């Protein structure tokens, strides 16, 4: 037997369900949406989960029937394992189902009286009392009726988007739309493209739409990189963290394979992230959000040394002259030399030159997996666009030269695209469907009623389809406008919107005559949008109604304070008396739930029957799961869908919501609607509870990435106005010629009207550290912060001397010593926006001058608007957008200081806020929901 190097597969080892009386299949990833990932077997006994374990694909099928793919580099072979590779919190998910923080029953805030004083000023401070489902739904139905009568349907804001458990029928987010869409509509909170702001608001203007702003098409990147990429530059992303939420740990195997097979991996990030920690050939620490300076200096080096592909640039790009003038100092008098960049980035100038030369002489791909300090901070459009230019200058689309969301896209296709005629090969991949094989479109054709029932709850993330819109980043600004002022914004932020959408001015409340995207129209025969004003007319229509200010908020995504910007302000703004009623439905009493007037207890995927196509790229194989109920509902909970049905019943709209079908009918409809019965008969699927979609025999036939564009840019143009890479954007030049924060071509923005978060700022005298707020290693955003076992990892939580589990704050030994901080100390991370308490982790994995706190920790607010103990770092992030006309959030790379909390200071707080410090606390999992219940069972 050879050395234990990436064995290709170990079929035939499927383990039996020891001790179980029932075994079911579940998708245990947490990205939500219409497609899941990470199939697992859940063993159950007497209605309790015994264990959750990887699904062995071959436990009920022959492994060879999956037609497993294989790749090879330098004589090392790589292929799928015969089991799934879920992330750790997915394998520990029973702790989430049985968490002491579950919402136990329907609850009403004790001092919220819909017929008297509503006390909005006490949201987040006063506690709850138990009510019955019947009472709760009576109150909710009465409030909806009152809203409709007094203000109109659009006075209800639905916050129902974002990541969640993988459930298709019992969608964790958006079931409320099924009801209100049938009652005159609603105001939609449009999810910001969080995690890739820079690409969405920036890169799109260089290479056209792309899927969510990433390079597209992105087919077969994985095999092409395996065979051709010599240098992989990973800028900010973490392949050992962020893929977990979406697709599990396949990316980890891939990175180990590439590493052992000789692909050089260079990581550029302020922290030695988890991927760099085990895969890096070279770590280049960069001060947070200064990547644009590094990129400009690389361009300068290539321009002055003549080491870029001038021929490619001449035929494939426009605007190089402007970039050249800019880096040579002809525009602003500043020459963007490596020395200049060294002063901004903290990277030695000789290292910058060495990197530039290495890149210029190797087939180089820039690798990502969302997130990191690089793409989510103030002015993130600039590094994103500069990355496109760097790639363009070396010949984007040549073999091995790509922008790659590694394994998120570009994996071998399964048979659905060729044998089931989904025809992805011939579709317009710039529209964005290449991240998965298999679509919902076939259901739409066969059974449009079912399609609407299943798809609409999941629609709030990709599409801005509500009758009135507010971008997720601007909810608080909208509320602060009151009832007599308008909010203006450019672009909705809907993930699948065209770049041209960012040139459109929207208003809240909506005004008659405002433009709105017309779904299903506006593409030419090639499926492409022509980018001129005529097409705005073709693709958008004028609305013929006026909107109204919002007066009620209904959330099934209660995590704004810990996931969006300036969270302390979010908590204070929801106390505005204009918001007369806040309804939350959620399994756990966490974050924004505490600010609701009524909370409905919903449940987890373990507690319901559901179905899930796991057809996204980035796993060993793609699967379809018949996710049968594992355990009875915990407490007095119902699913998110059932909760909405209960409300619908009180409004006489049950049939409209359920379309008169049962859950079993939905499951069968989805399975057959997606044509899966052509692979495995429905009866066999029901018996086995899962099926594996075989890999296409033709998977290699799709060209890698932008290869066709590279070969012939005239015949295969990009979806930009010029059809070429727009180093200088035609649209930005036309619509925002004077925008100094997102100029027509990317620049270094030291500060602007929106942000002042650099070390050169006067603010840095008081707040001298730059903080990064990565996607969390041990959560998915706000999800899963109550699992005891992940907290036991060294970087999980830091137990303070008071026994409390604090969120870790990484700080370099130099910065720690200067502040007298030791590992385990309780520290305060603060700026003028407030104080967040953390536990110090003094560590060489963060560069001097920078600190790091993963975002998404559960809030534990001690002083509303001022002090948090939970470590929810987004409470003090900037409020501003990515930039004035770019509606993303800027929640990483901002100024703070970190100081040790003295015993005296802590004692002062404890004396002043004894109740808050005395909240019921579970030593293993943290806060308990009982802390917020004043009166129990009735």
């Amino acid at each position: 037997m050879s050395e234990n190097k990436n064995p290709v597969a170990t079929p035939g080892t499927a383990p039996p369900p020891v001790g179980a009386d029932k075994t079911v299949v579940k998708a245990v990833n947490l990205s939500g949406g219409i497609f899941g990932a990470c199939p697992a077997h859940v063993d159950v006994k007497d209605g309790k989960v015994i264990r959750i374990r990887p699904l062995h694909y071959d436990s009920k099928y022959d492994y060879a029937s999956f037609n497993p793919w294989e790749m090879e580099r330098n004589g090392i072979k790589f292929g799928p394992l015969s089991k799934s590779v879920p992330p750790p919190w997915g394998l520990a998910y029973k702790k989430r189902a049985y968490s002491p923080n579950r919402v136990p029953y329907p609850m009403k805030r004790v001092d919220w009286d819909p017929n008297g004083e509503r006390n909005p000023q006490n949201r987040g401070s006063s506690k709850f009392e138990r009510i019955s489902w019947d009472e709760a739904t009576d109150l909710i139905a009465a409030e909806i009726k009152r809203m409709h009568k007094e203000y109109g349907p659009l006075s209800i804001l639905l916050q129902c988007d974002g990541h969640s458990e993988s459930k298709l029928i019992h969608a964790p987010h958006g079931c409320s739309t099924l009801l209100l869409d049938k009652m005159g509509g609603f105001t939609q909170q449009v999810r910001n493209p969080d995690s890739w702001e820079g690409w969405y608001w920036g890169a799109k203007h260089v290479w056209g739409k792309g899927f969510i702003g990433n390079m597209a098409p992105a087919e077969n990147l994985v095999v092409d990189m395996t065979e051709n990429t010599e240098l992989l530059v990973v800028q900010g992303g973490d392949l050992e963290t962020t893929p977990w939420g979406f697709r599990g740990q396949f990316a980890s195997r891939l990175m180990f394979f590439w590493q052992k097979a000789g692909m050089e991996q260079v990581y550029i990030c302020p922290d030695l992230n988890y991927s760099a920690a085990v895969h890096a050939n070279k770590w280049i620490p960069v001060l947070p959000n200064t990547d644009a300076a590094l990129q400009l200096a690389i361009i300068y080096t290539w321009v002055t040394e003549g080491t870029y592909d001038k021929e490619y640039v001449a035929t494939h790009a426009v605007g190089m002259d402007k970039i050249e003038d800019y880096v040579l100092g002809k525009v602003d008098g500043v020459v963007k030399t490596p020395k200049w960049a060294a002063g901004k980035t903290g990277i030695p100038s000789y290292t910058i030159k060495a990197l530039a030369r290495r890149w210029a002489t190797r087939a180089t791909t820039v690798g990502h997996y969302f997130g990191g300090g690089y793409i989510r901070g103030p002015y993130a459009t600039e590094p994103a666009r500069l990355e496109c230019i760097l790639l363009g200058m070396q010949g984007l689309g040549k073999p091995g030269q790509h922008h790659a969301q590694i394994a998120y896209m570009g994996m071998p296709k399964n048979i659905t695209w060729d044998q089931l005629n989904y025809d992805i090969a011939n579709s317009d991949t710039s529209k964005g469907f290449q991240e998965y094989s298999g679509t919902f479109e076939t259901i739409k054709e066969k059974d449009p009623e079912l399609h609407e029932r299943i798809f609409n709850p999941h629609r709030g993330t990709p599409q801005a389809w509500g009758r009135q819109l507010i971008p997720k980043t601007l909810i608080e600004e909208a509320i602060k406008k009151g009832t007599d002022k308008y909010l203006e914004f450019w672009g909705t932020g809907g993930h699948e919107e065209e770049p041209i959408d960012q040139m459109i001015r929207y208003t809240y409340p909506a005004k008659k005559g405002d433009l709105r995207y017309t779904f299903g129209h506006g593409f030419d025969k090639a499926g492409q949008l022509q980018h001129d004003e005529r097409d705005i007319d073709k693709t958008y229509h004028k609305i013929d109604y006026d909107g109204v200010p919002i007066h009620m908020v209904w959330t099934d995504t209660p995590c704004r304070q810990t996931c969006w910007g300036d969270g302390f302000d979010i908590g204070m703004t929801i106390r505005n008396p204009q918001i007369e009623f806040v309804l939350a439905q959620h399994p756990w009493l966490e974050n924004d739930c505490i600010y609701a007037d009524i909370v409905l207890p919903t449940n987890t995927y373990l507690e319901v029957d559901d179905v899930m196509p796991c057809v996204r790229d980035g796993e060993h194989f793609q699967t379809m799961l018949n996710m049968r109920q594992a355990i009875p509902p915990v407490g007095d909970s119902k699913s998110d869908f059932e909760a909405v049905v209960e409300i619908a019943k009180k409004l006489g709209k049950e049939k409209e919501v359920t379309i008169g079908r049962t859950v079993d009918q939905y499951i069968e409809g989805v399975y057959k609607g997606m044509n899966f019965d052509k692979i495995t008969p429905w009866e066999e699927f029901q018996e086995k509870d899962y099926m594996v979609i075989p890999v296409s025999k033709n998977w290699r036939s799709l060209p890698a990435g932008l290869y066709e564009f590279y070969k012939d840019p005239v015949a295969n143009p990009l979806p930009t106005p010029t059809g070429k890479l727009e180093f200088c954007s035609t649209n930005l030049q036309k619509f925002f010629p004077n925008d100094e924060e997102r100029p027509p071509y990317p620049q270094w923005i030291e500060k602007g009207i929106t942000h002042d978060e650099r070390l050169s700022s006067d603010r840095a005298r008081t707040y001298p550290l730059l903080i990064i707020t990565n996607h969390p290693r041990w959560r998915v955003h706000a999800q899963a912060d109550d699992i005891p076992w992940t907290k036991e990892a060294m970087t999980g939580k830091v137990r303070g001397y008071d026994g409390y589990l604090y969120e870790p704050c990484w700080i370099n030994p130099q910065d720690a010593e200067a502040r007298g901080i030791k590992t385990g100390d309780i520290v305060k991370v603060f700026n003028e926006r407030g104080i967040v308490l953390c536990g110090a982790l003094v560590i060489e994995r963060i560069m001097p001058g920078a600190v790091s706190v993963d975002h998404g920790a559960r809030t534990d607010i001690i002083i509303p608007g001022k002090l948090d103990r939970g470590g929810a770092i987004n409470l003090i992030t900037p409020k501003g957008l990515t930039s004035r006309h770019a509606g993303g959030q800027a929640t990483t790379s901002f100024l703070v200081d970190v100081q040790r909390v003295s015993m005296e200071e802590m004692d002062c707080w404890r004396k002043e806020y004894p109740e808050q410090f005395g909240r019921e606390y579970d030593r293993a999992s943290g806060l308990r929901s009982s802390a917020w219940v004043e009166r129990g069972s009735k």
Partner: protein
Amino acid sequence: MGKKVFIVDLSLCNGCHSCHIGCKDEHVANDWSPIAKPMPEIDHFWFKLQEKVRGTVPKVKVAYRPHFCMHCDNAPCMKVCPVGAKYKRDDGLVIIDPAKCTGCRKCIEICPYDAIYFNRDLNIAQKCTGCAHLIDAGWKETRCSDNCPTLCIRMMDEEDAKDLIAQAEVLKPELGTKPRVYYLHMPKKFIAGTVFDPVADEVHIGAECTLTGGGKTYKATSDHFGDFWFEDLPDAEFSLDIKVAGKSKAFTGLDTAEADINLGDIAI
């Protein structure tokens, strides 16, 4: 029944803790008597993933190491048990019989690997069972290894693993405990740095670096980033000579016993 061994390839560990979680998931609140009673919710680690940050910015690596009962063939815990609660199965796994253990804690004191925990509530000593209850029911792997996404940890039949065992090492071999847990690619120490020319403001590529220590001489040349790396070094005192462009620089007293050494950016 074939003898079982654990093969742990540390070059494949990504630190995800799925192993540790699999162990908790299997053993917390689940009673697998007669093999094991439940493990406490937290602070007990029948399976512990150890984590060490090596070096200083920017020459930093993270070393993870799964640590659990070594299922020694010459197990100190078995010898000191006054009631004979420990037994070795035919497949090599060492088990503490929860029904026989009287909670005297002698095994906890004697175990050189700190792999045994005292359960106060049950008044018994507990540790990794090698998931014997699963193996007996037909599992080929343990929960920790079944959960492992990279095949870093594998339970194998000793016969099939001979080649791997030949390349592997065990912890504290000098004690003669004969562990059945074998580690591949156990990290040693490194000495690293970056060589640059402060006048030209360029890295030195191809600088000849000669490291001497522990009775051996090691050679390296600086790469395209000016970086040189000496890896897999023993604990010893080293001296280093760097020669480039007719110039040289020397370092002495580089002691790897304490820690890995990053010499930083070296101007020559």
